[in-house]
């Protein structure tokens, strides 16, 4: 541990945790004279995290990004301009663990101080085979790479589009997660009592297409949806049954809740989240020294079983097939094919006030991920590309990560949207195309 990190650590410990009566011997040093045989390589003591019940880490990060073109709805070209602090701390108790992950940052794009608690949870095990995690937390499942069929946990598309670390694509929710492990099958249940929506594109950072206007809207938060009432009947329940058989992972999924984005419209013509049930399944395994994944999901529009209500998004079948392999030393290639098949499509078109803006019955999407790591992962080059032949639009995410040291990490990258038409899934964000840079100091 360098002196600098130690000072950082103590500053944080003193400032944030003194009130909790943390023992001063937390970072007890231990000499190891045998190490001298090896020169001074091991002059540092072992990090005795396990000797204390508390452990913690964090980082400070500066990020800047801006549009590569102008968006007439925004005077400011900045899409990312922030100084962020992230702190994580864990307490390992005799029976119960406590974990905290939090971010605070100054957002120069919106000129606001922000605080986001990503995790504040208690974990414990019971009955020998069941793990509980209660509190604010991030949940993920499914086999897709940046494509989600059965994972209806909240996502932060604003962070994703503006060049924050990929981790921030997942947003937290206040949930109870219960995972039971049986010989026959593992059962994973996530109950979110109060509906937690995505942090979707709402016009504040990036504009979006609006069919009523027939063009882009934005410049400020222009989506003010009607949210589901906060009652137990409106809670979200996500269930997964899964099992690993000789290295092949099988899973069944169920979800009862709502659209995560306000794609529906109320009778008073306001955007809203409609009820949604999902049933799905996935298989993941290895073949020819690569990995394949297949996933399917049926998204049931509970409030519009006929597909004729223009205010409710129709039911859909979703299908995904993917393959990933190392094609050359340290060069990994991943390919995915994804299909959204809208049910009752004729009904949809017949009743839609804007049939010209509806996606095709079968929306095809191809993705590719190319990752090249230099020796020892010093540089990681990555390109993720979405391309839809039916929408004729694309989204490219090139990035370069440079690990200068254990403390200093650098990232540059871009989010490049392209489309022939203003209303398609990625095409509507053409004016959001941006490039960004991030510098992180971690401790």
């Amino acid at each position, binding site marked *: 541990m360098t002196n600098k990190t130690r000072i950082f650590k103590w500053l944080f410990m003193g400032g944030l945790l003194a009130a909790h009566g943390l023992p001063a011997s937390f970072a007890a040093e231990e000499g190891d004279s*045998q*190490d001298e*045989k*090896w020169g001074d*390589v*091991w002059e*540092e003591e*072992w*990090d005795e*995290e*396990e000797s204390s019940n508390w*452990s913690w*880490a*964090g*980082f400070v990060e500066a990020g800047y990004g801006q549009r590569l073109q102008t968006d007439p709805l925004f005077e400011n070209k900045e899409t990312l301009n922030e100084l962020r602090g992230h702190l*994580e701390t864990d307490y*390992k108790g005799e029976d119960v663990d406590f974990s905290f*992950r939090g971010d605070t940052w100054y957002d120069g794009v919106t000129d606001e101080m922000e605080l986001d608690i990503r995790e504040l949870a208690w*974990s414990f*095990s019971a009955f020998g085979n069941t*793990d509980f995690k209660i509190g604010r*937390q*991030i*949940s*993920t*499942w499914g086999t897709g790479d940046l494509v989600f069929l059965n994972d209806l946990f909240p996502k932060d598309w604003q962070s994703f589009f503006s060049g924050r670390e*990929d*981790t921030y*694509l*997942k947003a937290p929710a206040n949930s109870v997660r219960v*995972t039971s*492990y049986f010989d026959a099958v*593992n059962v994973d249940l996530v109950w979110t009592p109060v509906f937690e929506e995505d942090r979707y594109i709402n016009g504040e950072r990036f504009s979006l297409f609006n069919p009523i206007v027939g063009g882009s809207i934005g410049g400020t938060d222009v989506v003010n949806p009607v949210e589901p009432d906060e009652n137990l009947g409106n809670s979200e329940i996500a269930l997964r049954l*899964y099992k*690993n058989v000789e*290295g092949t*992972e099988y899973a069944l999924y169920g979800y009862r809740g709502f659209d995560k984005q306000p794609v529906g419209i109320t009778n008073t013509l306001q955007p809203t989240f409609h009820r949604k049930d999902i049933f799905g399944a996935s298989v*993941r395994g*290895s073949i020819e*020294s*690569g*990995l394949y994944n297949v996933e399917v999901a049926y998204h049931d529009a509970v409030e519009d079983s006929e597909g004729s209500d223009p205010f409710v998004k129709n039911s859909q079948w979703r299908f995904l097939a993917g393959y*990933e*392999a*190392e094609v050359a*030393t*340290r060069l*990994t290639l991943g390919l995915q094919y994804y299909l959204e098949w809208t049910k009752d499509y004729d009904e949809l078109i017949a009743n839609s006030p804007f049939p010209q803006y509806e996606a095709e019955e079968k929306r095809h999407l191809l993705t590719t991920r190319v990752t090249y*790591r230099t*020796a*020892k*992962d*010093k540089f990681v080059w990555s390109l993720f590309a979405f391309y839809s032949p039916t929408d004729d639009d694309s989204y490219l995410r090139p990035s370069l990560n440079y*690990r200068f*040291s*254990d*403390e200093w*990490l650098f990232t540059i990258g871009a989010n490049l949207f392209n489309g022939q038409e203003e209303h398609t899934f990625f095409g509507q964000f053409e004016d959001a195309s941006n490039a960004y840079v991030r510098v992180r100091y*971690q*401790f």
Partner: protein
Amino acid sequence: MKSLQKSIKQKFLTLLVTGLTLPMMTASLQAAESELSVEEIISKANKVSYYAGDDGRSDARMMIVDKDGNRQLRQFVILRKDIQDEGDQNFLVVFSRPSDVRGTVFLVNKHVDRDDDRWLYLPGLDLEKRISAGDKRTSFVGSDFFYEDVSGRNPALDTHELLEVTDTAYIVKNIPQDKSNVEFAYYIANINKETFLPMTVEYFNEKGEVYRRMDVAEVEEVQGIPTVMKSKISNLETGSVTYMEFRRPVYNIGVPEDVFTSRSLRNPPREWLEAEQE
């Protein structure tokens, strides 16, 4: 934890008892040594390097030093259980440092007759990431060690040739059967005659030059089992060296097989990962 202590004590007792009969066995072994075939030597080396005891745990850390002297540190706990000696086995690696890999868990279900199943759990995303089996000779968390150096290379992937028997070592040349997925033309292992631990391994390129080298710096007897405590891998092309050190290793702790499943990704089993505090 009490039951763990008890079982360790029991194991120590068994070891003490078997230890009494060891000198006789060693004597008869020495007589047979010269008659060992190269396959037997490689099999023993594989066994003592990667299959010591039925299971084991150890603290580990790596110091990665580049040619300019810049250093990086990785600290983790490694837990292993053998299904069968020289056969299938399981690994669980839980990282604690540096902070960007803190809480990351690496799970390997290693198979001899098919590709290994490997997962990486990324806690920030709550993501159980499956890793393809192909990329075994790539950097293990940014170090000069490869994944294959940590979990072992299947001896059946190479043909073996005994080059020389010295007073202290067997010198064995290993040639890959399939050159397409390895970066070496061959490697030469210097295997200690007493312990069967490979003490140095040199990797050669097509031109016959050494470009990569593994050295064992320190071996200790742990519960009667010769155990590598310090080793290093030098990349002679880049001038980079990674030092690996183990601490508080213990064998035959009785870790159950179901510890090596997806449950341990989200909820690493502290009962088995934490060392007994001295």
